[in-house]
């Protein structure tokens, strides 16, 4: 076991690479040089190092700062090219704030964010704009994020125009046609307005709009949470398909572990601004170690009454405490059924328990 102050470098980049290589060898029979090179040289497309985002809480007309909302409080992880990291946690755990920090929509209080090796936190607005061609975020609400007075074809091209990358009229409509077809929309509908589309179709339009810039990385923030099951399944599968087609990397944010797990290679579980557990998605649901993760798993019912009703359920009581005054010790201690004195006094650090599995819990590590 090794404790990790700075993220998760110590438990073997070497090993991770070897594992990937083995898989490749099995699949292709031999390993092309290029693959080896990219795997070793440009393993991570994104690396987030110890990021904190505090919002000041002010009082009175002088706006005197009285406290901080510690929305994101020391987060580190990395995303491999062409892969997906899922981020799950309850409402208010800081998922959207983290996404906005990576996008540089928010100026981080502390920490660094490397995208393709460049530290985004140091870039000028002009350089950032170039990065935004590669790095896109699709947000929570498909209704609010489309301008109702804009034809969807123009909405899709908006980003391209802002980047100064718009081509001739013919090239533009060609681009709109391609991305609309990629996301399963009828391209002849480009002249219609958002209200003429259903919720699921509007979400597809938002995806098409992000794809128009041909990004290499997309942050998806609760992109399916508002959709009904059958459409949710279509959109999740669509994300998987375009990832394979375009070698995209994703951060997939959500509160439903069953949805996030479906698309993610790796999952980070967030609680009150911190990662409490992080590992491969299959490992997470088979061998979850953190009591919070176990409660999240338990909150997802199985659509089979006999099996679901026979399950032992760990229901979380109460709500997430305020991020202004997070609990002393382990942040989860106020809701944890295993909490003891040590948990209330000493904050557990994110520790590696082998097998690319990290957990911040006194009980899980000593057990």
């Amino acid at each position, binding site marked *: 076991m090794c404790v990790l102050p700075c993220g998760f470098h110590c438990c073997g980049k070497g090993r991770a690479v070897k594992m990937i290589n083995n898989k490749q060898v099995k699949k292709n029979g031999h390993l092309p040089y290029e693959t080896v090179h990219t795997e070793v040289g440009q393993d991570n497309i994104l690396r987030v190092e110890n990021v904190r985002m505090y919002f000041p809480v002010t009082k009175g007309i002088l706006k005197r700062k009285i406290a901080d909302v510690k929305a994101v409080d020391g987060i580190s992880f990395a995303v491999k090219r062409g892969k997906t990291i899922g981020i799950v946690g309850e409402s208010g755990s800081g998922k959207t704030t983290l996404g906005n920090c990576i996008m540089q929509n928010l100026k981080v209080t502390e920490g660094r964010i490397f995208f393709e090796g460049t530290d985004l936190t140091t870039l000028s607005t002009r350089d950032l704009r170039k990065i935004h061609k590669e790095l896109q975020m699709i947000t929570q609400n498909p209704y609010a994020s489309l301008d109702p007075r804009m034809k969807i074809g123009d909405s899709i091209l908006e980003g391209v125009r802002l980047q100064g990358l718009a081509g001739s009229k013919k090239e533009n409509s060609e681009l709109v046609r391609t991305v609309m077809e990629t996301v399963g929309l009828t391209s002849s509908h480009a002249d219609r307005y958002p209200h003429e589309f259903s919720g699921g179709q509007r979400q597809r339009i938002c995806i098409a709009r992000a794809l128009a810039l041909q990004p290499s990385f997309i942050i998806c923030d609760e992109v399916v949470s508002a959709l009904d099951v059958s459409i949710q399944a*279509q959109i999740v599968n669509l994300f998987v398909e375009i990832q394979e087609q375009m070698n995209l990397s994703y951060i997939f944010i959500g509160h439903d572990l069953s949805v996030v797990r479906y698309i993610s290679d790796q999952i980070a579980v967030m609680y009150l601004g911190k990662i409490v557990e992080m590992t491969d998605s299959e490992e997470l649901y088979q061998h979850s170690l953190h009591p919070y993760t176990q409660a*999240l798993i338990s909150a997802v019912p199985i*659509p089979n009454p006999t099996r679901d009703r026979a399950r032992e359920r760990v229901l979380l009581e109460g709500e997430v405490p305020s991020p202004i005054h997070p609990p002393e010790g382990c942040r989860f201690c106020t809701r944890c059924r295993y909490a003891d004195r040590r948990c209330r006094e000493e904050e557990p650090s994110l520790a590696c328990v082998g097998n690319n599995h990290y957990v911040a819990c006194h009980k899980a590590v000593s057990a």
Partner: protein
Amino acid sequence: MQDTVLSVQHLSTSFFTDEGELKAVDDISYDVHQGEFVALIGESGSGKSVSALSILRLVGDPPGKIVGGKVLFHDTDLLQISDKEMQEVRGSKISMIFQEPATALNPVMTIGNQIAEPLRVHKKMSKQQAFREAASLLSKMKIPNVEQRIKQYPMEFSGGMQQRAMIAMAMSCQPEILIADEPTTALDVTVQAQVLEELNQLRLSTNTAILLITHNLGLVARYADSVKIMYGGRILEMGSTYDIFENPHHPYTLGLIRAVPRLDQPKSYGLHTIKGEPASQEDRMMNNCLFVKRCKYATDICWKQQPKAEEISEGHMCACFHADFTAAEREELLR
């Protein structure tokens, strides 16, 4: 089975707009028993909300109109009584939590006052009594620090607490039926699970029947006694929760259940999708199976006639010509 409290019979509601008639609810029938937990599921636009609003005569007219059927509450047809009598039923006998939560709570009134008001109006309680009752309901819904919370305004509540307050308000007059239209959809899954658990406990202690409209099939499997599957304004299949999830017969029901991502299965189990678009206005006017365009089992007859609901077993009805074609898929589901 316990007594029937509500019997919906051949209920049909349409909207009449420039584009002609839209059959939002088309000839649906079902019973709700005392204390029963009934779930209504189906994709967006299938008529769940409109069918619930029709029970309480709350569909906007125009453009909406209840064009046929009966809604028997005990033995009274709610579609025939006077507006004044209906008002009385709405407040105290059948209450409803609406789909848009923002509209349901009054932002300038304390939570306590909002819950106490119907008690004073319908149950003629004193102010003090009503407040005591409100506090007890809020604590049953697991709201912490009730004494303090009861004096707060809705905006001081988190989404989950607002939802709990709304349930407390709707349950305050001990209605015989609570209609809850997606009370938890906007909340995260852990809170959804908590709120539903508390609602269910409350139901068991008061014997109120619940008609829950939701997209969350998992929670339905966990709590409901019976399930109606709606599609394009009709009920395609209905039965006990066990019938629907463990012995589903309709191709649409199967598609819907298989679209739920499952934690108890390996990833390779896959996420199934139902191809195509929901039933359009035109589709609903045709005299064939509503699901035919999207159905992988469809044959000639499905394009020519409307399948009638047939009994699979007691209380388990399915409207499909080829309910037995789905056997293999059913087996796969239970794997």
